[in-house]
């Protein structure tokens, strides 16, 4: 069992992924839950991912896998399949799982360092992608990551646009994008990311007649306009003035 003193600082931990196949649903759920519970102890941060991952967790019901990529396989079951690989016995024990994850995590990280594992190519400057879901808290430990994720909640974006809007370093954006992609939270999109347009938008003063509360008390039966369209009608300079009043810095070069 590791101690808190031995655990690596969270901000320096590698983010690794694992897939699960062939485990009974109850055991799969328990495995994923234990991994989450152990997150503050394991040397790497582990996140479940559908499809190819850094580690394959396979149960006794798992079909034979041929042509598999070079990733470690962890067999989980009642009986060790005696294939000479890594094995965890059921019922799962947190201590054993922690030790196994640390051992396999070290292998993966080492293999990456030697270039034995293919590292996903980073996105191109203008490759557009979309955030599918608000990221798990484990990926948002640094405040700038919350801001980066927030900038991705609207229309599709790209590395270049993200860097421009956030004012963060390219590597910080790339690291975050890579973590999101490994967690299956990013989707490539065909449409090009749009770099702003907001700052040049025009605010017709009649668009928000009811902002002078109180106003019309009847229900609004008009269909809601697209999110982007309404955002672009905000008065130029308004957001900067609010930022200024709240003592906030501009989000980044625009």
């Amino acid at each position, binding site marked *: 069992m590791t101690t808190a003193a031995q655990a690596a600082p969270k901000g320096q931990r590698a983010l690794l992924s694992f897939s699960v196949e062939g485990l009974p649903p109850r055991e799969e759920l328990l495995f994923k839950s234990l991994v989450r519970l152990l997150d503050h102890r394991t040397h790497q941060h582990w996140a479940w991912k559908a499809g190819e991952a850094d580690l394959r967790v396979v149960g006794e019901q798992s079909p034979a896998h041929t042509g598999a990529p070079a990733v470690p396989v962890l067999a989980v079951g009642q009986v060790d399949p005696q294939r000479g690989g890594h094995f965890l016995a059921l019922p799962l024990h947190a201590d054993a799982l922690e030790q196994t994850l640390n051992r396999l995590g070290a292998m993966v990280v080492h293999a990456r360092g030697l270039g034995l594992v293919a590292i996903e190519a980073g996105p191109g400057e203008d490759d557009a992608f979309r*955030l*599918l*879901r*608000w*990221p*798990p*808290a484990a990926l*948002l430990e640094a405040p700038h990551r*919350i*801001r980066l*994720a*927030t*900038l*991705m*909640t*609207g*229309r599709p*974006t790209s590395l270049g646009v993200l860097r421009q*809007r956030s004012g963060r370093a390219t590597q910080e954006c790339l690291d975050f994008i890579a973590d999101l992609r490994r967690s299956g939270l990013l989707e490539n999109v065909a449409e090009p990311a749009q770099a702003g347009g*907001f700052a040049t938008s025009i605010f017709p*003063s009649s668009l*928000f*007649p*009811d*902002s*002078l*509360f*109180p*106003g*019309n*008390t009847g*229900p*609004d039966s008009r269909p*809601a*306009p*697209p*999110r982007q369209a*309404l*955002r672009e009608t*905000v*008065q130029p300079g*308004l*957001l900067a*003035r*609010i*930022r*200024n*009043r*709240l*003592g*906030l810095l501009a*989000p980044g070069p625009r």
Partner: protein
Amino acid sequence: MTVEHKILFTGTMGAGKTTAIGAVSEIPPVSTDVRNSDTSVAKATTTVGLDYGELTLDNGEKLRLYGTPGQMRFDFMWRILARGALGLVILVDNSRPDPLADLDVYLDGFSELIATTACVVAVGRMEAHPQPDIDAYARRAEARGVLCPVLPANVTDPQQVVQLLELLLLQLEA
């Protein structure tokens, strides 16, 4: 005529709407509180109308901060308040019996506003009540088709309220 803009704070009774507004407003928040008759909530008073605070921008315009009444029986006011709002902060109290269901209420009640502008979900009292965790809220929002920031927050800390407002601004700027 003075141009006015508004941001809404919503959430259940006791979630901290009045506190959040008071944390950043330049005037003491105006509240329409009355004596609380709901014995399930340990509050002496509760907001039956709305809370109001404001900030004056450097060009004289006002940013108005409204706290909506929390109870569903006042949901007719939600729609009125939502019209023309720049964004919405949903405050959830994690100590309540079913806070995820509470989130559903406000995601549904403000669905039109959320679809057209910025939204942040802030979950309070997570230190003493860590479950459900913040990721459960993100999944719940996703199930409702909402993608917005979801984070723990203590609205008694003005800096954290400012952070919530900044996340609204970032969405509007994106």
